C-alpha cells in the first residue's frame, strides 16, 4: 500500500513569506517487491529520490539523501543555495558509503529531483531553486500549462537532444531505463540548477519516473486541472492512482506543491520603458 500525506507550512523570508501547501503520495506499484523511492516534504524543501541497486541498497540510497536534506533545513525558514549544494554533496558521500559498505554486492545510487525555497544574495529575496540529477522530474504548473522544468539525465534524452530519435520514440526506446547521472555513481556529482523568483501563486509537480513512464504529460495536466479535493484524495493520490491503473511497473512517487508568496520585492509585472528626462536649458545669466 502507498503512503499519502498533506501538509501546510509558511516559510518566512526577510522580505515576504511563502505559504506552501503540499500533498504527496508514494506506492510500490504492481510489479516491484519494495519501494525504493523516497520523498521529503519538509520546511522549504520538496524532493523525490528514486533509488536503484540490488539487495535493498536502492532504498537505503534514496533514504540517505532524504535524511541529509531533512537535517539540513529548518521547518519554517528558507534555505540557502549553499545549503542545497552542500546537502547534495553530503548525500553523494552518504550513498557512496553505502556502496562501499556493500563490499562488492553492487553499487547503489539514487536520482534526486526537487525544489527548495532559498534566499539569494544579501537582499534576501525569496527564490525557488530547482535541482535535478537523473530522470525524476520537476514540472511547473500554472493552472493551464504543465511545463517540464528539469531535463532528464538519461540515455534517451541524449538521443533526443542529438536528434537521433523523437520524443515520441523515446517513450518506448529499449534504453529508456538508462540514466547518465546519479547520486552515488561518481565521487563528485553536479546537479542541474534553476533559479526563479518566488512570486504570487506557483505550483510544482515533482515525481519519479514511475509516473512519467506510465502517464503522459497531457494526461497529467488533465488530472491537475480537473482535480477537486474530495474524500481525502489529494492531487498526488490521484496521479499515483492513474500510474497504477496504467500498469504500475515501477515505484510511483508524486509531490504536488502549491505556493503563494506575498510581500515579495519582485513581482510579475513587465518591465516599463524608462521615460526620457528632458532637461530644460537654462538661460545664460
Amino acid at each position, binding site marked *: 500500500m502507498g503512503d499519502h500525506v498533506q501538509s501546510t507550512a509558511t516559510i518566512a523570508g526577510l522580505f515576504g513569506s511563502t505559504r506552501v501547501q503540499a500533498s504527496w503520495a508514494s506506492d510500490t506499484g504492481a510489479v516491484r517487491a519494495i519501494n525504493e523511492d523516497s520523498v521529503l516534504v519538509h520546511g522549504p524543501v520538496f524532493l523525490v529520490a528514486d533509488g536503484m541497486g540490488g539487495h535493498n541498497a536502492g532504498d537505503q540510497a534514496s533514504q540517505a539523501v532524504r535524511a541529509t536534506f531533512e537535517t539540513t533545513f529548518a521547518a519554517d525558514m528558507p534555505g540557502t543555495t549553499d545549503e542545497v549544494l552542500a546537502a547534495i*554533496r553530503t548525500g553523494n558521500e552518504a550513498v557512496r558509503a553505502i556502496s562501499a559498505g556493500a563490499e562488492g554486492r553492487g553499487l547503489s545510487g539514487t536520482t534526486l529531483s526537487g525544489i527548495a525555497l532559498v534566499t539569494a544574495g544579501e537582499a534576501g529575496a525569496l527564490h525557488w531553486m530547482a535541482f535535478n540529477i537523473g530522470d525524476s522530474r520537476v514540472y511547473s504548473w500554472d493552472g493551464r500549462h504543465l511545463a517540464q522544468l528539469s531535463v532528464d539525465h538519461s*540515455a534517451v534524452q541524449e538521443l533526443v537532444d542529438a536528434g537521433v530519435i523523437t520524443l515520441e520514440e523515446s517513450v518506448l526506446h529499449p534504453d529508456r531505463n538508462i*540514466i547518465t547521472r546519479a547520486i552515488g555513481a561518481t565521487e563528485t556529482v553536479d546537479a542541474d540548477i534553476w533559479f526563479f523568483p518566488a512570486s504570487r501563486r506557483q505550483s510544482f509537480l515533482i515525481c519519479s519516473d514511475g509516473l512519467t513512464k506510465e502517464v503522459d504529460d497531457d494526461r497529467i495536466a488533465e488530472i491537475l486541472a480537473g482535480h477537486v479535493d474530495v474524500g481525502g484524495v489529494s492531487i498526488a493520490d490521484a496521479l499515483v492512482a492513474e500510474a497504477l491503473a496504467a500498469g504500475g511497473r515501477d515505484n510511483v512517487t508524486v509531490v504536488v506543491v502549491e505556493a503563494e508568496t506575498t510581500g515579495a520585492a*519582485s513581482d510579475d509585472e513587465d518591465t516599463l520603458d524608462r521615460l526620457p528626462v528632458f532637461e530644460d536649458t537654462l538661460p545664460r545669466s
Partner: protein
Amino acid sequence: MPSYTPAPVGSTLALLHGHRALLVEAPDDAARIEALWTTVSSAASLHAVLEVLAADGIAKTPGFALVELDEDGSANSIVRGDVVVHLHSAAGERVVDATQATTWVEAAAEAVTHVAIGDAGPAIALPLADGAAWASSLTLIQGSASDPAVVEVPDQLVAAAPVSAPDHIAVSDEPLPVEIVEAAAERRVAEATLATALPEQTINPGSDEATDEATVVVERPVRPPRLTEAPPKPAPEAKNALGGEHDGHTVLSDDIRRLRGEDRARASRPPTPAVPSGPRYSLSLSTGGTQPLEGVALIGRAPSAAKITGGRIPTLVTIPGDQDISRNHVQLAVEGDTVVVTDLNSRNGTTVVLPGRAPQHLRANEPTAVLVGTVVDLGGGVTITVGQEQ
C-alpha cells in the same frame, strides 16, 4: 626538458621561460612579441602577461594558452580561443578548453606531471630551452628535486636541437629540470592502461527485480546503437567487481574514461571553486550593501537562471522597487582576473563608467571587461560599483 612541435612562421608562437610557457596565435608585430617576451620572462604575475595579451580589448585578444608550473607541483593555466591545454597528473587528465568561453578560461591542477599545450599532431617533438619558436604545441614536464632527471636526447633529435632564442631575446641561464620526452609518452600510455582496468561505475538492479524495467546508470555519453560498431566489452574484472548480472546496457568509451579522469581531477579540488590568489572583487550597490563578487552575479528586479550545470552557481542580486529595471538586467562575472559586465538584453539598457572615462552604453549580451572603480548604471539612479577587496 620541455619540447615543442614546429609550425610555420606566423602561425602560433611559443614563448618559454623557466616554468612559464605561452602559446599565442599569430602575433602580428615584433613590438608585441617583444612585449610578451618581456613579461613572460619577468617575475611578473600571469596577470601581467594577460594584460599584454588583452591590451587591445577582449575582441582583439588572440587565442592563447598561458601555463605556469609551480614548485609545489601545481599548474595554473589561462586559455582563450582554440588552443587546448591538457594538465596531466596522477589523478588523471584535466582538459582546459576555452572554445565556449567569450573571454578566457582559468584552470589549476595539483600534482601535475606534465602539461600538453596545443595540438602536437604527428610531428616530431623537439627539445626547447628558454626562448621563442613557431610551434603548434608545447609540452612542459614537472621536475622536482626528489625526481632526478636524466638527460638523454635521442640521436635523431640531436641534429635539430636545441633551438636557440632569437638575438634580441635574452636567454635565461636558470637551470631547467629535464627529462626525456619519451618518458612523458610512456607515462601517458601507463595512464591509459590504468583507466582501462578501472571497474565500471555501473549500477545493476538486483536479480530479484524485474530486470528489464529496472534503471541502470551509465556515464555519458551514450551513443546511438546504429552509429556504433560492436560496443566494447567491459573488462572482466569490472564485471567481477560488480558481482551482478550484466544486462548489456553498459556503454564504455574513451569519452567515458576521459570523463572519469576529469571526475577524479575534480574530486581532488575543494568542493567550491575557490577564487585563487588573484584579486578579490566586491560589488557596492547604491541601494545599500556590499557583497563579494565570486564567479557570476545576476542582477535585476527579479533575477532567474535556467539549467546551470557544472557547479558555477550565480549569486542572485535582487534590486527591488524600480520597475524600469528588467528582471534579469545585467551580469557581472569574474573571468580569470578580470571583471566582465554583460547587459542581459535589458529593456532600458546598462551604462558603464570606467574610472576617468566617458559613460559607455553597453550593447546587449556583449561581455565588456571593466576595471576596479567602474560604475555600472542600471538607470533610475541604481548603480553598482566594482570594488576590490584587500
